[in-house]
């Protein structure tokens, strides 16, 4: 305000007029300044102090509070009656990711997520007259939603009719809640996993002791054919037990990953029940249980995966046998369940036993994974507590349902499986063509490639004993080399092998003149549809899941020579 007046110039009339105008302006400015101060239109003065300037707020006493409001971690704003922001603190600008000056005069509504705007407007409407509180999501300038709680409160009258609003960022709280829930779920999963591992170790060790003993026995009694036979039978039983445990484990992991696949076809209920009963018969007779099966007179067709449906009934029958003292009765009965309007026709299969039953409080949890009713110390019943979970999952995948009933402890139990049936139930289907070649009658030249030497050699030995000629290879390159000179009919390739994996070995063999006709079979630990598709793409003729059962191999070869590809 002390701009020097230009001088040293000839004071012409024009220069004088300009000077006059400048002076008038400066006088006006000074008068306006005084008027503004008198009218209270300013709220601070800037006073030069030594080398610096200092700002003196006119309402000096409230400055600390202003600073508090500016600096605090709580976002606050005052709103005009129409919801426009009169003032917002630093934290609010941060929360919204917008510069402070962009807030002033803008309706707070503008920063509320579209879906939450009606809720916001209701809160604001209440907030004009009384305290109101609620949660909405704000929308940051970068588009990110922010969950917040809003508290509206009317300010005193002398604050110009403004509405105060307190905005609390709920992001940390929501994250904390999610983390706490996730942690609790993890803790529970960990507890169940630990319980399961303890049981698993126990179950897997059980068959190992007799197997090791059997090996010692075989060494001592090699010249006693009768003893060798009975010991071998025992070995077979125990290995079978272990295979079932491991199969159950694989199924459990498939259930938990939702990776169970059905290979549906039209099948007869009677055939499913027969095969399930067949699988349980040895156990039934060793426990002297009496097993009766009653099926409807009509032929009942299901649209299902035969392997999985047999598994369902085998598991239920196994349970019935397992949880009953020797000499008990198991009854299987099936009947058509019509008469539910709108629902597809169904068949109900009941499996009733006179065993230990299920206490009422455990009935709802009986299908949970790892749930077992057996609480006795001797734990004569083996199993991992997976069977019923698998039953329920498989039945539901087939569009059916399963129910457990029991009068209580010691009163036996009944499982009812309800499965939808195919509409065309009366017309019998022609039986699938039987394999034209009898398994086991043909002798093959076979190469077994597996980087596990024991596996390769054991399978080769077994195949040799069954009348075939077998060679082994322990990596992919060796497999190709052995085949090159041996010219086999069949090559069994492990997939995970050093030097050359099974897929690449297969592709390489297919490029050789002798390799086009050879039967290439993948032997792997993986039997999912995806794995089968990959081996097929690589050029394999078949896919067997390890450990390879020589009988299954022979069936596969027989069906192949009968012109059918079985995978």
């Amino acid at each position: 305000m002390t701009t020097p007046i230009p001088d040293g110039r000839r004071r012409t009339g024009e220069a004088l007029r300009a000077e006059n105008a400048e002076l008038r302006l400066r006088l006006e400015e000074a008068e306006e300044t005084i008027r503004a101060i008198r009218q209270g239109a300013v709220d601070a003065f800037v006073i030069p102090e030594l080398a610096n300037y200092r700002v003196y707020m006119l309402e000096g006493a409230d400055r600390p509070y202003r600073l508090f409001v500016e600096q605090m971690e709580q976002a606050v704003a005052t709103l005009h009656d129409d919801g426009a922001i009169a003032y917002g603190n630093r934290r609010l600008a941060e929360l919204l990711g917008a510069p402070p000056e962009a807030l002033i005069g803008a309706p707070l509504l503008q920063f509320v997520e579209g879906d939450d705007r009606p809720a916001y407007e209701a809160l604001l409407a209440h907030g004009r007259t009384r305290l109101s509180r609620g949660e909405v999501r704000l929308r940051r300038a970068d588009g990110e939603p922010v969950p917040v709680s809003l508290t509206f409160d009317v300010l005193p009258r002398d604050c110009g009719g403004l509405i105060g609003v307190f905005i609390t960022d709920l992001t940390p709280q929501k994250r904390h809640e999610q983390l706490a829930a996730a942690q609790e779920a993890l803790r529970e999963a960990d507890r169940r996993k630990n319980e399961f591992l303890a049981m698993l170790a126990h179950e897997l060790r059980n068959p190992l002791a007799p197997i090791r003993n059997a090996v010692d026995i075989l060494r001592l009694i090699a010249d006693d054919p009768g003893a060798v036979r009975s010991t071998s039978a025992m070995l077979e039983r125990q290995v079978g037990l272990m295979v079932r445990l491991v199969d159950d484990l694989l199924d459990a992991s498939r259930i938990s990953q939702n990776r169970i696949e059905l290979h549906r076809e039209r099948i007869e209920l009677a055939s499913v029940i027969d095969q399930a009963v067949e699988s349980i018969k040895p156990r039934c007779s060793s426990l002297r249980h009496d097993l009766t099966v009653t099926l409807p007179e009509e032929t009942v067709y299901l649209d299902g995966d035969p392997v999985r449906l047999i598994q369902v009934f085998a598991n239920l029958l196994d349970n019935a046998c397992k949880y009953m003292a020797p000499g008990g009765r198991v009854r299987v009965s099936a009947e058509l369940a019509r008469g539910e309007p709108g629902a597809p026709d169904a068949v109900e299969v009941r499996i009733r036993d006179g065993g230990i039953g299920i206490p009422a409080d455990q009935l709802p949890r009986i299908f949970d994974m790892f749930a077992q009713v057996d609480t006795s110390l001797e734990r004569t019943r083996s199993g991992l507590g997976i069977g019923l979970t698998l039953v329920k999952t498989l039945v539901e995948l087939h569009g059916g349902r399963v129910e457990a009933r029991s009068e209580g402890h010691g009163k036996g139990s009944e499982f009812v499986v309800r499965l939808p049936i195919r509409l065309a139930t009366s017309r019998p289907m022609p039986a699938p063509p039987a394999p034209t070649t009898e398994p086991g009658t043909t002798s093959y030249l076979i190469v077994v490639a597996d980087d596990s030497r024991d596996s390769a050699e054991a399978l080769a030995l077994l195949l040799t004993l069954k009348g075939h000629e077998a060679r082994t290879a322990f990596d992919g390159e060796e497999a190709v080399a052995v085949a090159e000179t041996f010219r086999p009919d069949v090559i069994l390739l492990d997939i995970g092998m050093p030097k050359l994996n099974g897929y690449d070995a297969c592709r390489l063999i297919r490029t050789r003149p002798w390799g086009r006709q050879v039967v290439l079979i993948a032997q792997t630990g993986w039997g999912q549809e995806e794995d089968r598709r990959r081996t097929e793409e690589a050029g394999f003729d078949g896919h067997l899941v390890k450990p390879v059962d020589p009988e299954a191999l022979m069936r596969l070869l027989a069906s192949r020579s009968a012109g059918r590809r079985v995978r």
Partner: protein
Amino acid sequence: VKKKSAKPAGPDASAGETWELRLYVAGQTPRSVAAFANIKKLCEEHLRGRYKIEVIDLLQQPQLAAGDQILAIPTLVRKLPEPLRRVIGDLRNTERTLVGLNLRPAEDR
């Protein structure tokens, strides 16, 4: 202090050049906030698309008060077009503000 050219004052609003305004505030005091809202509204009405408002908070940078010789807060300074003009207060009186910024000639001139 830089010498300002003494060309005769007159309405500049129609000149088409960009206006550079500077608002000196002290934190977000009520009058500073009001001054910002008022000048923003006024610029939108009269200078849409050709104005810039720079807000300087003297609570954070008091030394910047020296440049434009600020005495009271809020103060609005017109940097461009020249000559420099100052309007003190919360700019609640639109008429006075327009005259002060020379956006409209005063009735008595």
